[in-house]
């Protein structure tokens, strides 16, 4: 019977359909329709023929099984994956089987002993065994998962550290390599231009070439600053944040308590939080002023940028989302408070205890 039931649901196909979240109502409605039409058609055939034993009851019964199984499995599949879902799937199948047996016993005339109680006991024992075995395995599994999380955290942080170091190296290489060569080129072009003062057309050509070299240098400089601001590497977070404050189009006050230099990756993340936050204030609240707080202890690096603007910032805005990803990659938290009329506060907390 259970074989037949599994067959009529069409094997694993509907399970895949659950997973993709396909329209559940339609599949069940279709099966109900088949059930109703099948039952009704056989009842008509029965009515036309002899009016003996009402055999179509078995057709009603058989066609109902896939519907019941489908409903049960859908319920089970809504559970979170893993242990709970496994148990739920087993319970759904057991319940369907038990219901089938009860119905069969009832249709067959309710004679004798209520035999489905035997198989029900079996189902319950199996379910209990499943839960017990899985429950016993779980601590080991949990330990394995904890190890894995630990390893992932470590390697992720390692990757980010490597990335931060690489970015600083790239910035330095740009400075020592391409930029230096372009400067030398620009210098030679400049000398040639100066020597050609008596041939203005040729001098103008040299000047254009020098302008191009100058533009290339400026672009490289902007690129270098975008990936690793030199003052951050040179003077550390507080100096870099103060520099941001000075450069900002709004008045910025910096309150810093940073007794040591945090890891480069934390410095960079904190720097970009302040940079993005100040850019946002200057853009959306040009009349406001801002206070930047940077505080480091042995647990965490805290960066708060608070302005006295009109508030109402969208915490899901593109820039803020980018910052959140940057901070969360370091297991940090970024909070944006921006009630209308109450200014905006962006608070990033980066754990730095090892």
């Amino acid at each position, binding site marked *: 019977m259970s074989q037949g039931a599994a067959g009529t649901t069409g094997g694993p196909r509907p399970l895949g359909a659950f997973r993709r979240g396909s329209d559940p109502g339609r599949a069940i409605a279709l099966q109900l329709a088949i059930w109703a039409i099948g039952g009704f058609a056989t009842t008509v055939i029965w009515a036309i023929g002899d009016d003996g034993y009402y055999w179509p009851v078995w057709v009603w019964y058989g066609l109902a099984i896939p519907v019941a199984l489908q409903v049960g499995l859908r319920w089970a599949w809504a559970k979170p994956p893993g242990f709970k879902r496994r148990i739920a799937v087993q319970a759904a199948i057991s319940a369907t089987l038990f219901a089938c047996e009860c119905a069969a016993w009832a249709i067959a005339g309710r004679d004798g002993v209520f035999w489905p109680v035997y198989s029900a006991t079996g189902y319950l024992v199996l379910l209990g065994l499943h839960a017990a075995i899985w429950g016993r395995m779980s601590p080991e599994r949990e330990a394995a998962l904890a190890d894995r999380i630990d390893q992932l955290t470590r390697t992720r942080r390692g990757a980010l550290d490597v990335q931060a170091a690489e970015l600083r190296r790239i910035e330095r290489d740009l400075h020592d390599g391409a930029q230096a060569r372009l400067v030398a080129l*620009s*210098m030679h072009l400049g*000398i040639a231009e100066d020597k050609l003062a008596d041939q203005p057309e040729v001098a103008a050509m040299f000047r254009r070439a020098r302008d191009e070299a100058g533009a290339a*240098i400026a672009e490289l400089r902007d690129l270098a600053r975008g990936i690793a601001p*030199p003052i951050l590497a040179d003077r550390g977070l507080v100096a870099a944040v103060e520099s941001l404050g000075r450069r900002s189009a709004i*008045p910025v006050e910096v309150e810093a308590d940073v007794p040591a230099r945090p890891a480069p990756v934390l410095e960079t993340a904190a720097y970009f939080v302040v940079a993005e936050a100040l850019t946002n204030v200057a853009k959306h609240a040009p009349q406001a002023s801002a206070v930047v707080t940077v505080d480091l202890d042995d647990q965490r690096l805290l960066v708060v940028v608070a302005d006295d603007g009109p508030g109402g910032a969208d915490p899901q805005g593109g820039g803020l989302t980018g910052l959140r990803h940057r901070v969360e990659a370091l297991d940090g938290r970024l909070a944006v408070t921006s009630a209308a009329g109450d200014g905006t506060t962006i608070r990033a907390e980066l754990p730095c205890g090892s």
Partner: protein
Amino acid sequence: MRVVIAEDQALLREGVIALLREYDIEVVAHAEDGPGLLRIVNGHKPDLAIVDVRLPPTFTDEGVRAAIEARAQHPGLGILILSQYVEPAYTAELLATGEGGIGYLLKERVGEVRTFLDAVERVAAGGTALDREVVAELVGSRGPSGQQAALAALTPRESEVLELMAEGRTNAAIARSLVVTLGAVEKHISNIFGKLNLPATDDDHRRVLAVLAYLRAGEA
């Protein structure tokens, strides 16, 4: 004029030395790091030190630190910083070192031969030569300082004139650059002095004060 240069990149160092020699300015010694700069400044007593911001061993702001140190030991030494990038904090630190010429130029300005030579002459003579990018950064920013309001009261043309003053230009050069008469520049400058509330002492001194007010407004 006696010049020393501290630059670790041979390509640039030799280039600048050749450039200056081409225009009859003698580079009496060169160094490749901060301690080297202090050594040659002590040994040669130059008028001007041309210094790269980044020098070994740290490749950070070694050059600025060494230049400030050299200046402390030799008041009046002109310092012309060459940098790959603009950092107003460094300019402010250098300006705070007192007596003597100060320059801060982006490296590519070396290619603008006349401008560069002009800056070299000016800084060696005790003047100021700030890169227009440094000045532009400072103009774009606003500090919390009390000079803020005074600077905000300047007309756009007056701000332009002050910018050029901060770059270290003479009145005649400012007039040429803005294509106005010398008289008009003098009028603007006297308006700037008035708005910044600078006392009527000698003009050069007020000029420095105006520029400092302007730069400090960019400081924290």
